[in-house]
Each structure stands twice: as structure tokens, then as C-alpha cells.
């Protein structure tokens, strides 16, 4: 039995096949980077794994349970938490209250009193470095801080698996470094991560495995270096003509080198 298994997942919205027969396994403690060009189905897959969408084909199983059969509000109690690419703070609540809601209703929420939920929220805000704005309304936060808040809310659910949907988009270089340090520390604490990100440098640095989607299909899976050298991946990102031109250029260079050697 594997930890989290995505098996033949297809998702169709009317005439659009957003996901087509996507399968891969996620091992406990791994960091899976999910990459692909715009519109390749990354966020759709995140929505399927977190139970927001029910797949039109295939299934996602986690700890022997099929996610599609679990109501959205109970997915987090299985141990799966997510952030939203388009952040969804509770605008009128303070930052601390936002996180406390997760701590109240997440996996261990039933065991916590309101006061304990607030204490737990305060600890998490330290981890994501939002303690300085804990008592401000969430609507006052800057975009990078809203991304941090999304992470803190997800962590408040005490997840085994955390799905991070573009939490680094819009961050500057030093903020990206901070975010990477945060991901590493989460991974060290035993949280399995599935990370959607456009920043190649960031995702290569943190992932143990990379899954590449293009037009709803999985086109590659493997260690970061392996994947970046895959022809299918380069084609998906830069186009088939680019690959052919590169190959032609390489052939010419090889021929010249061969000639030079003679």
C-alpha cells in the first residue's frame, strides 16, 4: 500500500479535458514538485487531490481512503491540507483568528479549546514569520504575507500531506529563500509536500521528485536533474521547433568538432 496514490485521474470540464490519465505515487516524507506550462492542469490536480473537485475518471487514494468519497470539510481530517493559488483569507478576521479557525476545525481541532486553538495559531505565525502582524485584519496584509497566511492556515490542520499551490509567486529573491527554508523545515518535521511552482530554481532546490504535466497529461516523472534533461519536458516548455533547432545546432557543432579533430 502506498501513502498517496493518484491513479488514472481524468478531469473533464465540458469540452475541456483538463487532466488525462494522470498517475503517480507520493511516498511518505517526500517533496514532490509539480510543474508544467500554464494551463497544464497543475491547479486542477491539486483541487482533485484535496477533494475540491471529484475526478471524472480514476481516483486519488490516501491512507486507504478514496478522496472523492470524502466530503471537502473532512479531507483535512484525513491529513491533507492545501493552500490556494488565489489566496482566500477571511478578510475581516485578524491574522491570528484566520489561523485559529484551522486549528479549531482541522484534524486535532476537536481536542482543542478556543484558547488552545489561539495558542497554536500564535506558534504557527512564528514559524511563517507573521507574528508581527498577528492582530491585524487579514485584509491589511501584503501579497507575500497573504501567501504566508495561507501556509499557516494549512499547517493549522496538522497535515501529513501539504499541497502548496504557487506560494512563492510574487515573492522577491530573499523572500523566496525564506520560503524555501520554511519548506525544508516542514519536510524535516515529516510533512510530505506537493509543491506547484513556476520558479524552476526554487522547485529544483527543494524537490525529491518532479512530476511534469503538459496539456493535462503527465509527460515526465523523476529526479530533478533527470527531468530537466528530458526531451518531452523541453518540448513542452520551449516547443518542438526549439528542440529540433538545438539538436541541429548540436549536430553541426559535433560535425565541426569531428572535422577539427581530423
Amino acid at each position: 500500500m502506498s501513502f498517496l496514490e493518484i491513479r488514472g485521474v481524468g478531469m473533464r470540464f465540458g469540452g475541456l479535458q483538463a487532466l488525462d490519465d494522470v498517475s503517480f505515487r507520493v511516498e511518505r516524507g517526500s517533496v514532490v514538485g509539480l510543474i508544467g506550462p500554464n494551463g497544464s492542469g497543475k491547479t486542477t490536480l491539486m483541487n482533485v487531490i484535496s477533494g475540491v473537485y471529484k475526478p471524472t475518471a480514476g481516483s486519488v487514494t490516501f491512507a486507504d481512503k478514496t478522496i472523492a468519497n470524502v466530503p471537502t470539510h473532512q479531507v483535512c481530517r484525513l491529513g491533507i491540507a492545501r493552500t490556494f493559488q488565489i489566496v482566500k483569507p477571511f478578510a475581516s478576521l485578524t491574522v491570528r483568528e484566520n489561523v485559529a479557525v484551522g486549528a479549531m476545525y482541522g484534524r486535532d481541532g476537536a481536542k482543542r479549546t478556543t484558547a488552545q486553538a489561539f495558542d497554536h495559531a500564535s506558534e504557527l505565525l512564528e514559524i511563517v514569520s507573521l507574528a508581527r502582524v498577528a492582530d491585524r485584519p487579514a485584509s491589511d496584509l501584503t501579497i507575500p504575507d497573504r501567501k504566508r497566511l495561507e501556509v499557516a492556515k494549512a499547517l493549522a490542520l496538522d497535515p501529513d500531506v501539504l499541497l502548496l499551490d504557487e506560494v512563492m509567486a510574487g515573492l522577491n529573491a530573499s523572500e523566496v529563500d525564506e520560503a524555501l527554508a520554511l519548506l525544508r523545515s516542514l519536510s524535516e518535521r515529516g510533512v510530505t509536500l506537493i509543491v506547484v511552482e513556476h520558479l524552476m530554481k526554487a522547485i529544483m532546490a527543494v524537490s525529491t521528485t518532479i512530476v511534469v504535466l503538459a496539456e493535462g497529461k503527465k509527460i515526465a516523472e523523476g529526479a530533478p536533474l533527470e527531468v530537466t534533461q528530458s526531451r518531452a519536458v523541453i518540448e513542452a516548455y520551449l516547443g518542438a521547433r526549439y528542440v529540433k533547432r538545438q539538436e541541429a545546432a548540436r549536430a553541426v557543432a559535433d560535425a565541426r568538432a569531428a572535422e577539427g579533430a581530423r
Partner: protein
Amino acid sequence: MAVATATAPPARRVGLGGITGSPLALKVVVGLLVLALAVPLLHNGYYENLFRGILMFSAMALGWNLIGGYTGYVSFGNVVFFGLGAYTSATLASHGIENVWVAVPLAIVVAAMFAVALGVPILRLKGHYFGIATLGIALAVQEIVANVDALGGGTGVTLHQAAWYSQYYYAMWLVCAGSLLVTWFIARSKFGYALVAIRENEDAAAVLGVNATYFKVAAWAISGMMAAAAGAVFAFSTGFIDPPSAFSVDNNVFPIVMVLLGGIGTVAGPVVGAILLTAINETLWSHFPQIHTLFFGAVIVIVVLFLPRGLLYLQNARGGLRGMIDSLSAYRV
């Protein structure tokens, strides 16, 4: 050497009980409520009626605030619960049980059952659709009641009042105090935070483990119980009810305006609104009997324009004079 320290003051006092609203307003309201216990001792029928009206509208406004203010589901049909409560009393009375203390608990049970039965389907609707559905239910129930002979039909029901008339005042006081207490407990509990999370973003709330359907139905049921209890006492205190009085438009609209005037999504706001609106209404009524509804309409427009979230938000760091100016410029007045 001056060192610039980045110590931004917190925008509002929060922590435990952050969604209860102004603690000062709550203390004032509780104080007024205790004072209100003495009203029947004045032996003045006008004051007793006036204050019983304030208590009644406070309970209804507190009820509306739970579903419309805390949960963000704007109901235009909470009068249906008030009417059901009133007709619970009327039905009991026509079967010889003319006792307000029996009627109130029964009305609460009737309202809860009605809210759960209808809440499960209609709380799947969002925004305006929910509002329209609740309005439809209120109108439909009024028509049904008007056509059921066992309930008095269109002619109404007369209830015999007990010799100790002030018991209805105290019953209404208990309904109001109970509603305030329940709201206060909810606003300090996990339950309250679930409701606010649903109001702010229902999808995000579900992902955080909030069972939105359960909490919405519960909030609507409790909201209905408050209105029904007020209706049950009202039926005895007026002595006669018919469908237009039990399901009146005033009883539907006033609580909403009171919540907006006092402070939406706060514990004390609905009571503050009930006191102010009743005072405004009485003053206008006595000074401009012909055109008081015109002034009343103007008051509603002014409230919505300048205090869209209620008087209690004036205390807020973002309220006050600056908030008012922001509001003005936002509406390009």
C-alpha cells in the same frame, strides 16, 4: 540617536472573543437590560408597551444577526419564525392552554424543526438567491396560515390575557436576555468562528474543516428560535393575531434595519439598533404623524450610506470620522 522602530499598533483589540464587538457597548446594553426589569414597576401602560416592543425587536434583531450578520446569509424571511411562534401561542390558546410559559418553549421547538426541515435545502443557495427563497417562504407560510381554518384562517385568533399582564413583559425580557446570552456565547466559541469563516469565504472554510451545511442550518435554527420565542409572547401581549399582524412586513424589515444601524456581526449591535430605531420611530411618529414613514425611509438610506456596518463600528480604528469620510468618498456623495 533616533532609531526608527517599526511598531505598528494593532488595528483593533482582539484575541479571545475577537468577534464579539465592542465590550463597552455590551456592558452598556447589559446595564440597560437590568434597568429595563424595573419598567413594569412604573405602572405606566405606555412605557411598558414601548419597552416590551424594544425587547421584542431586540430578540428578533439578535436572531437575524446570527444568520445575516455572523453567517453572512441575508434572510428576508425571518418573520416566518415570528409568525410561527405567534401561531403556536394562538393554537395553544384555542385549545384552552392560555399560558405564555408553555407557549414559548413549544414555539422554540416548532421553529427549530421548521428551520432544519427547510434549512437543509435552501441554505444550499447563496447570496441573493437565499434572500429571495426566504422571502418566498415567508409569503407562502402567511398564505397557508390564512387558508387553514384550524388556525383561525383570515379572521385571526383572540387570546385571553392573564390578570397579571406584566408577566408578558417579563417573558419578553427573558426572551431578549436569553437571545443576548446565546449570541454572546456563540461569539466567544468555536461555533462563532465557524459562522464568520463561512461568511468570509465558504470554500476556504470547508477546506479548513468547517462543515458549512451543519453550521448554517444550526445558525438559522437558533436565529429562528429567537424570533419564534418573541412571537409567542407577542401573541399573548397583543391578545389578537391574524396573518397580516403575525407575518407583517414591519416585523420582517425592522430587525434588519436595527442590526444595520447598531452594528452587524456584533453581540450588542442589534440591541443598540433596536433601542435607537424605536426611539427614532416614536419621535417621528409623535411629531410628524402624517409623513413619519418618509422620515423613516430617509433614516434607512442615511444609515446604509454612512454607516453600512453600524454605529458600533464607529469605535473601530478604521471607523470614526475618517471612516465616515471614506464612506462618503466611496459613495461619491
